[in-house]
């Protein structure tokens, strides 16, 4: 039987949700910023182990300053969430704790990964020093530009989804 899982990327405008997906699905990156309107859906088949494949249907939602404004009908039936923030823009993580609490309350049994993106723009020591300022400890620091930790992020979540 084919295994397909729906993953949704959430977060503020311009944090790099679409870039992360494009890097994961197409191995490409562009500096041109095109705002996502509504929703964009992409798919990638991942081999988790020999003879074990999973299709990830990835929903790239338009960014919102307030997570509660996200269209609830898009979130229905989701198997996993990825919450993305920009490590260089405090506005994108100042409500991180509340947003994560909201998500875990509303979708208690749905796996969630918190991601600090654009890690290539800061140093590793900056990330280490500012870890506490994000409010919630991120599961990954990624760079959609260099591809660093992008595959790890999606594959880790995929493995959790088939457990």
């Amino acid at each position: 039987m084919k295994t397909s899982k729906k993953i949704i990327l959430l977060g503020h405008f311009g944090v790099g949700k679409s870039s992360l997906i494009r890097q994961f699905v197409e191995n490409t990156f562009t500096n041109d910023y095109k705002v996502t309107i509504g929703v964009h859906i992409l798919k990638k088949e991942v081999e988790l182990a020999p003879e074990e494949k999973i299709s990830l249907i990835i929903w790239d939602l338009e960014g919102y300053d307030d997570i509660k404004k996200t269209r609830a009908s898009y979130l229905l039936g989701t198997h996993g969430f990825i919450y993305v923030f920009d490590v260089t823009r405090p506005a994108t993580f100042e409500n991180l704790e509340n947003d994560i609490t909201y998500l875990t309350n509303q979708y208690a049994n749905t796996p969630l990964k918190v991601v600090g993106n654009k890690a290539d723009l800061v140093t590793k020591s900056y990330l280490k020093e500012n870890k506490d300022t994000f409010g919630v400890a991120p599961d990954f620091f990624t760079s959609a530009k260099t591809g660093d930790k992008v595959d790890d992020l999606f594959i880790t979540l995929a493995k959790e989804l088939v457990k």
Partner: protein
Amino acid sequence: MTEADKLALLKDLLLTDDRAYAESIHTKIKALEDLVHKQQKLSKKVNPIIDEKLEEFTEQIPETLGPTITEALAEQIKNSKDQVVEALYPIMGKMIKKYIAQEISLLTERINKQLEDSFSANSWKRKFKSWFGGVKEEELLLSELRSISKVEQVLVIEKNSGMLIGQYATTETIDKDMISGMLTAIKSFVEDAFNEKSQNLELIEYELYHIHIQSFVSFYVAVAISGEYNLIFKNKLQDIIFNFTENFLNLFNDLSEIKEADITNELEFYFSTNENL
């Protein structure tokens, strides 16, 4: 007369009545034993009593058990609303559709009357075909309408998540999983935008193509059609989808249990030939 004889005589005089009484009791017990141990005899006696009691009980059911049964049923329906609606949906849909089909046939008849009065070349051609072929003119007209519509793709999609449950396609398109997701997103957006949760998006049009959408409780069926999409075609399409749902999908409690290949085979059976439509 010895003492012993006297005593026996006295005993006889004193216990005669008791003995007779004991004997009658013994006979009655024997008769009862006989009655109890022989089913046929017992049935003869007991059955009328049971029948009478049963009749009384049946008469009293509405009064005694009625409220309890009604309450239990109401509770059960309340707790399993989706299952009840899922089960009733195709039946209700068919009933409504039969009525609509009747209305459409009346309308068709009226159109036919009008067509009789027309003198277009096609009309004459159809008339000749009908006269020489022995086929009714309205049937020829319907087959003409049918031949210009074609089912390109059928998708069965989980309503909430937008995940593809199964599909059948006559022509290859872009990834079906992505189409399912996008269709669900568009559908959710339209339904949210008008704030009408009970209303469903039923049709998407783009140039020569139409996407017919038929919603059920936990899933919906999207059919991509090229060419003409008219009421007659829509009607036939709805019937096929209702039949497919009722005869196949409703056999499963959990749609995720169905193998995609099985759905494809079933869809192919229902949609593969345009003769069905």
